[in-house]
């Protein structure tokens, strides 16, 4: 004997009207046969038999309203009772999670902390003046030499040598199998790159700017970031998406946006935004080796800037560790990417006025190393966050929230955020300058928290 139950026909249905029976007692039904019609708040739908056998009894008359889901509505004599599965209407999971009573865990379980350290640089190591552009190129070249599965693809990365010359000479060294010019087709090649990563390759996907990656954001978030989780750990996505992020110069709103906060919100992604050339090289090498999808945010205005890069074998900087760029005692400024430079200039200027500033370079936005920030604020008791993007729901908002959560009692003044004005970036030179955050705005904010 098998009971036919009132089915749920949508994710939200709890009850419905049994409008019509197509069968009666004594009929023999087969699997797939339409046996009844049911009306829900959305639609009238047909119900098909799953089991086969003779109808012994109709339990709920047609026309009955408010029939609860899983109520027995008819009874069949099972044709083959042995193979009929024992269906239990109530989904009574064997392990009712006990944690539910206490509420879901609010935070990731605490894992034993691995101490992340920048590589030791021998005292006699040579420091080589290197542009950020070349540091990024060196990182890719070294990793491509090291691992045959690493390849670079994007618009103009090969023959043109990179729209910003970041991939200069890579085609010559590695050939067009591993340095691949794509059509202008961000959605397509981002998806293609993710598929190649699913299959075990390690693509570096260059976006000419992150602004264009909005066409590809579905693959970055839905395909790259989530698949490991949705596959129960079976399928990772070792890919690096990289390119210039943030404002360039006089290219106006569609070509000038900081995506730090956008991507830093997504579990499954790691988000890296280096400031100097050594970090650009060391963090990009780490990103290429990382088995997870990485969003690597460079800055167009900084490609040509030179910094010292230690001439050491295999310089890899760990992802997930902030760096104190300047020590100070009165106020902490957090910043990433280009804003670190402005923060350092502001610190220098403020030192002349007797204010001692500590500058924390966040470097990795996800996972955010708030311990380093919190330690700094416990010392300085004041916080200014600086970012190039918009303020609302931004990186600074997150930094401030974490500091309040972990060091509220240490704060001597409300934290302040420095960010772009809350408008699309204007084209006119004067308006553009007014909109973007810089040294002056940081100095003003520091003075305000010191007041």
């Amino acid at each position, binding site marked *: 004997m098998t009971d036919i139950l*009132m*089915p*749920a026909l949508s*994710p939200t*249905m709890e009850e419905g009207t049994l409008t019509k029976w197509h069968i009666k007692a004594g009929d023999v039904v087969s699997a*797939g046969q339409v046996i009844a019609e049911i009306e*829900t708040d*959305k*639609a*009238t739908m047909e119900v*098909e038999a799953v089991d086969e056998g003779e109808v012994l009894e109709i339990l709920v008359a047609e026309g009955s309203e408010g029939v609860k889901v*899983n109520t027995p509505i008819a009874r069949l004599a099972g044709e083959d009772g042995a*193979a*009929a*599965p024992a*269906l*239990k*209407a109530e*989904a009574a*999971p*064997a*392990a*009712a999670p006990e944690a*539910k009573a206490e509420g*879901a*865990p609010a935070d990731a*379980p605490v894992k034993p902390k691995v101490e992340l350290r920048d590589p030791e640089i021998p005292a006699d190591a040579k420091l080589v003046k290197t542009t950020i552009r070349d540091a990024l190129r060196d990182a890719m070249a070294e990793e491509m030499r090291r691992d045959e599965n690493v*390849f670079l693809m994007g618009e103009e990365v090969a023959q043109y040598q990179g729209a910003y010359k970041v991939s200069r000479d890579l085609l010559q060294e590695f050939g067009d199998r591993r340095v691949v010019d794509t*059509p202008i*087709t961000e*959605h*397509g*090649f*981002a*998806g*293609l790159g*993710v*598929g*190649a*990563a*699913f*299959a*075990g*390759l390690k693509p570096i996907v260059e976006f000419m700017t992150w602004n264009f990656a909005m066409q590809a954001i*579905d*693959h970055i978030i*839905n*395909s790259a970031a989530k698949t*490991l*989780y*949705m*596959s*129960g*750990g*079976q*399928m990772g996505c070792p890919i690096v998406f990289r390119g210039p992020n943030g404002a360039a110069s006089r290219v106006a709103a569609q070509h000038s946006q900081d995506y730090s906060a956008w991507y830093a919100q997504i579990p499954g992604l*790691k988000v890296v935004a280096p400031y100097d050339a050594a970090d650009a090289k060391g963090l990009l090498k780490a990103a290429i*080796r*990382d*088995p997870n999808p990485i969003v690597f945010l460079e800055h167009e205005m900084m490609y040509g800037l030179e910094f010292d890069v230690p001439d050491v074998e295999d310089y890899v900087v760990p992802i997930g560790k902030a760096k104190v760029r300047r020590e100070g005692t009165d106020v902490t400024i957090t910043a990433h990417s280009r804003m670190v430079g402005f923060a350092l200039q502001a610190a220098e200027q403020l030192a002349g006025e007797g204010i001692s500033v500590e500058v924390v370079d966040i470097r990795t936005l996800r996972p955010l190393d708030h311990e380093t920030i919190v330690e700094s604020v416990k010392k300085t008791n004041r916080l200014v966050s600086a970012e190039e993007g918009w303020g609302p729901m931004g990186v600074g908002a997150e930094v401030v929230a974490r500091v309040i959560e972990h060091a509220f009692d240490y704060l001597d003044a409300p934290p302040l955020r420095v960010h772009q004005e809350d408008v699309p970036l204007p084209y006119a030179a004067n308006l553009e300058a007014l909109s973007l955050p810089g040294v002056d705005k940081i100095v003003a904010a520091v003075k305000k928290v010191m007041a």
Partner: protein
Amino acid sequence: MAKAAAQKNSPSAGDKIPNTPQASKEDLLRFYREMVLIRRFEERAGQLYGMGLIGGFCHLYIGQEAVAVGVQESVKQGYDKIITGYRDHGHMLAAGMDPNEVMAELTGRIGGSARGKGGSMHMFDVPTGFYGGHGIVGAQVALGTGLAFAGKYRGDDSVSFVYFGDGAANQGQVYESFNMAQLWKLPAIYIIENNQYAMGTSIERSSSTTELYQRGSSFGIPGEQVDGMDVLAVRDAAARAVARARAGEGPYILEVKTYRYRGHSMSDPAKYRTKEEVDEVKKTRDPIDHIKMLLAAAKATEEELKAIDNEVKAIVAEAVQFAQESPEPDPSELYTDVYVEA
């Protein structure tokens, strides 16, 4: 053979396949078993959904069984790669995934193929070469093109089988993918399962051109139309396309004409097509009835079929039981698999 197939990509070329397809009785029995397994499995999945044991969205493959089963004959399991959208249960069973794991994933239990974290629309099984199970319409086409890229990059002769529907065929990234696949001669077989309805919108109401096998013509990708209710026609068309792709001749499009008997998902009001239309297909074009006819001609006995029916019934019953008895994932699973620990 490849050339002959390539010529089909013109409006005047018919969808006829030159020779009547042949299969041994053993093959026919195997196809029958796989198709019946999918159908019985899906019927039970629908029932479990009705009982609240399966949540969210659930898209059943009933009516389309001959497509995945026919194509699978050309797949080198674990070497080639298969990818599809969210109507994926049939492909997984055809690919050789354990029905227990598939059903337990549908019920969101720890015994599921993704430990209950993916559900109906997001399932994966790397050992059988099944790369999902993707929930965003059309996304699997770019991803599958990337799977093909990886094969070519490695210099092997593996092929990527990329399934999508007539609805996805209007997504922009499909054409971005076609362009790159042909440009780089990637070994991708694009299988358009044209079941004639994108959710509730018929192909005539959604597509300026309805001959989907021609959709690659701007890119120089040949294509052909296949009767998706005839497992042998699908098998043979896939074999031709695969031979071409393995030989390095690039992508190919198979527009497989099929039909879905059930609604788009479970809550489908069925206002966009008539009951008569559905009944007519069930009566005259059913892929399982078709293979039964071939089996009768091949002198398979009622007893042989009944034995398979009973075997399948037991497999599905076991899957249903497993999917109910397997526990929900432990709360500690909440934070696993977000990142690969480096």
